[in-house]
């Protein structure tokens, strides 16, 4: 009976707003439905001919918190929340409570912003704050108002960087703004407002420190809150938060200037940001004073320095904006973790700003790989990508033809015809794609690298045919007539193979980062790495010869010419590093296969996949790109099926690696990253030499492999069973 009453009430209200069709009415069918339901048998449905149970399974279930984003929670709408006093302006008539609450809001917004960067939706994080959603309401409260405006401007800047770079993956929500109110003009004023607020609080702080005689002069300044003893600490707590915001937005803006022109200034802002963050962290001690301790653990999880819950936030308000996709549960970072995130982000950005912008492909690739080692997050990766590729040029400055040609010591600035060459245009596109992919996160990067290998190898084949034909017609082969185009194209063709091998090597090594290989598969992975490394080293060595040749010719022509020895030396050194890695891969392949052949290590046997199937699954993309050109699996089984433990010490691969590592350490004295790499390789070699000696003598030992010294080259761990 009650039900019917309530339904009739709803009936009236619906008929007001939801009209039925023309000449028709809404007829209540609830009684009829309940009658038919009681007549139905268990499991029976009433449905039409087009009913499909499978399709029906995908229906969104209403009132299921995991599927129904429209569930009405605390408030029906933002307006209702405001009217109910959920986000009052001013927050409190008590000035102390007011300032404390504003600091809580600032802290919580910082947490929201970091959570957003980490992959949650903007609507449910930063824009869960009513003060940010409706900044016009707070215009009388300069502090809160300007802070919220700057937050909005910062969000806008971040969205613009990430969407321009398109380093975001389809799963990333960062660039989705769901029609949220981004008022560019109004928000842009936020920074000047915030500056004015900062100035006022600075004066306030000076007034606190001043002697009593001076204090009288400054009395017209209204204190932030009522307790004069706390004034100084409140001023400091606010100032560091405001300044962090200010410098952070400046950093983002400076980094967007073309060709990295704003980097120097950006680094200053970054340094300020980091030091302000330290003050923010320090302020927690003061802010937590009046809070009753509920145990350390709970405090650690809190989203504000004070540990209080902030006023004016409801993450369910905007939930429907992401509709009709199922709502996502938001787990905000803790305040401490959010600060940690910013420190990491700022260090990553600083690393980018500190890059020398050397127009040398070897340098650039090495830098990107080194940068990716710290697993940077999306925002910094987006910045890196925007730096590398601007207007189709490296750093927005150098054409990819110039970069490639410089790789073997040639200058192509005068060669305009070549710029429009069909192959050069295609090459630029390939290079742009490659650099963009290298800025993506590791799993995405690996998948894409595997795919572009095929594009590169097809391109190489096509270019090979054209260049080969042209070379046959032009038998002189030397650039006597001044047209170096063919000469350069031929070199680029040769260099392509080196580049393809480099991509393949990166693809294989990322597999270790992503833990895609099981210990029983290490043998085939190292065998493959050996093949690729060998090819890469061969081509790089060839490039050194070209450079030496070009430089010598230049020197002959012009007696005053200074040979660019640095480049020669650098590549030669790199070749030696590759040589060291080759020896290690070879050594590991032999050791692993010997262990396998004599049953000391698990054979690659599973109930589902044979070894050849696993081989195909791991290396299919490489084989499609003809890396190597012969039947890799056959070659792998042939070369590894006869290795024996007692012969192991005879192969001196690890000793070779150790020797090379020792020799090249001097060369890398000025490059701490490379030096660390060489040291790690040396350690792996030393460790494995000992292991080989032990296991060749005693077959009852247990052997396992760990990546304690180097992320890609395993060290054998020997234990008595």
């Amino acid at each position: 009976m009650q039900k019917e009453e309530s339904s009739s009430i709803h009936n009236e209200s619906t008929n007001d707003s939801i009209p039925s069709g023309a000449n028709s009415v809404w007829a209540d069918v609830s009684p009829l439905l309940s009658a038919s339901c009681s007549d139905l048998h268990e499991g029976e449905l009433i449905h039409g001919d087009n009913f499909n149970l499978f399709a029906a399974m995908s229906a969104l279930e209403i009132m299921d918190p995991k599927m129904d984003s429209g569930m009405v929670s605390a408030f029906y709408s933002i307006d209702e929340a405001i009217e109910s006093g959920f986000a009052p302006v001013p927050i409190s008539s008590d000035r102390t409570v007011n300032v404390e609450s504003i600091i809580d809001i600032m802290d919580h917004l910082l947490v929201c912003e970091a959570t957003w960067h980490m992959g949650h939706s903007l609507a449910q994080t930063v824009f869960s704050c009513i003060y940010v959603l409706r900044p016009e309401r707070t215009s009388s409260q300069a502090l809160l108002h300007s802070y919220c405006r700057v937050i909005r401007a910062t969000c806008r800047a971040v969205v613009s960087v990430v969407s321009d770079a398109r380093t975001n993956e389809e799963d990333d929500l960062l660039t989705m703004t769901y029609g949220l109110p981004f008022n560019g003009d109004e928000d842009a004023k936020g920074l000047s407002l915030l500056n004015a607020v900062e100035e006022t609080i600075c004066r306030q702080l000076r007034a606190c420190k001043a002697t009593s005689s001076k204090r009288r002069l400054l009395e017209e300044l209204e204190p932030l809150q009522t307790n004069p003893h706390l004034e100084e600490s409140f001023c400091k707590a606010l100032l560091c938060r405001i300044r962090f915001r200010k410098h952070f937005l400046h950093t983002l803006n400076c980094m967007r200037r073309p060709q990295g022109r704003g980097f120097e200034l950006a680094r200053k802002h970054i340094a300020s940001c980091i030091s302000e963050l330290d003050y923010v962290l320090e302020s927690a001690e003061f802010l937590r004073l009046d809070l009753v301790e509920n145990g350390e653990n709970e405090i650690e999880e809190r989203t504000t320095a004070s540990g209080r819950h902030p006023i004016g936030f409801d993450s369910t308000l905007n939930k429907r904006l992401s509709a009709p996709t199922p709502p996502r549960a938001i787990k905000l970072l803790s305040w401490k973790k959010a600060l940690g995130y910013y420190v990491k982000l700022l260090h990553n950005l600083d690393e980018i700003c500190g890059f020398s912008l050397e127009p040398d492909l070897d340098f650039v690739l090495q830098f990107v790989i080194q940068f990716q080692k710290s697993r940077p997050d999306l925002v910094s990766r987006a910045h890196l990508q925007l730096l590398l590729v601007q207007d189709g040029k490296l750093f927005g400055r150098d054409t990819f033809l110039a970069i490639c040609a410089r790789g073997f010591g040639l200058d192509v600035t005068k060669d305009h015809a070549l710029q429009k060459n069909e192959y050069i245009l295609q090459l630029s596109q390939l290079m742009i794609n490659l650099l963009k992919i290298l800025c993506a996160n590791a799993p995405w990067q690996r998948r894409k690298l595997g795919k572009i290998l095929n594009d590169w190898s097809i391109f190489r084949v096509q270019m090979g045919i054209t260049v080969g034909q042209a070379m046959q017609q032009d038998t002189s082969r030397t650039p006597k007539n001044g047209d170096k185009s063919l000469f350069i194209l031929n070199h680029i063709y040769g260099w392509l193979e080196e580049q393809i091998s480099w991509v393949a090597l990166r693809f294989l090594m990322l597999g270790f980062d992503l833990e895609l290989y099981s210990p029983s598969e290490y043998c085939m992975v190292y065998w493959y790495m050996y093949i690729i490394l060998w090819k890469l080293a061969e081509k790089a060595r060839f490039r050194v010869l070209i450079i030496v040749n070009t430089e010598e010719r230049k020197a002959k022509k012009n007696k005053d010419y200074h040979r660019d020895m640095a480049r020669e030396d650098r590549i030669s050194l790199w070749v030696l590093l590759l040589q060291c890695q080759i020896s290690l891969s070879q050594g590991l392949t032999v050791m692993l296969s010997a262990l396998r052949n004599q049953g000391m290590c698990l054979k690659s046997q599973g109930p589902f996949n044979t070894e050849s199937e696993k081989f195909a699954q791991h290396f299919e993309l490489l084989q499609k790109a003809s890396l190597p050109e012969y039947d890799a699996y056959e070659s792998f089984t042939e070369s590894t099926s006869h290795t024996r433990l007692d012969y192991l010490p005879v192969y001196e691969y690890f000793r070779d690696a150790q020797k090379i590592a020792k020799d090249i350490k001097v060369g890398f004295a000025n490059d701490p990253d490379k030096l660390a790499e060489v040291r790690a390789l040396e350690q792996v070699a030393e460790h494995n030499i000992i292991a080989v000696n032990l296991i060749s003598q005693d077959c009852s030992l247990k052997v396992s492999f760990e990546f304690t010294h180097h992320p890609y080259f395993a060290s054998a761990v020997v234990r008595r069973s």
Partner: protein
Amino acid sequence: MEQDAERSATTVASTSQGSKLDPIARVRKLLFRQMLVGIKDGRFFLGNFHCIDKQGNIILQDTVEYRSIRRSSPSPTEQRCLGMILIPSSCRTSCHVDCSIEEQLSLIQLKE
């Protein structure tokens, strides 16, 4: 409009009491018709009636969700499209079907 609604509500109620026609067959006739379902939290769903099971769970197709902006009525409503939805019987508070008056009258005559 309001009068129509009242009348239709009473007529359907009276027919459901006195009717001897199989309710299942009558519900089957409602398939593909526009159905308006109200739920506990005050939202309404307007969609094509697609399916119902013994427990009274309803599936609607091409659904539009209506919700009030404020808790106090009357208030303006917001709407958005949801596609196919399943409304569990536990949260359903009302259920109406779009009917022409003539059709409904003839339906009643048939039954009586």
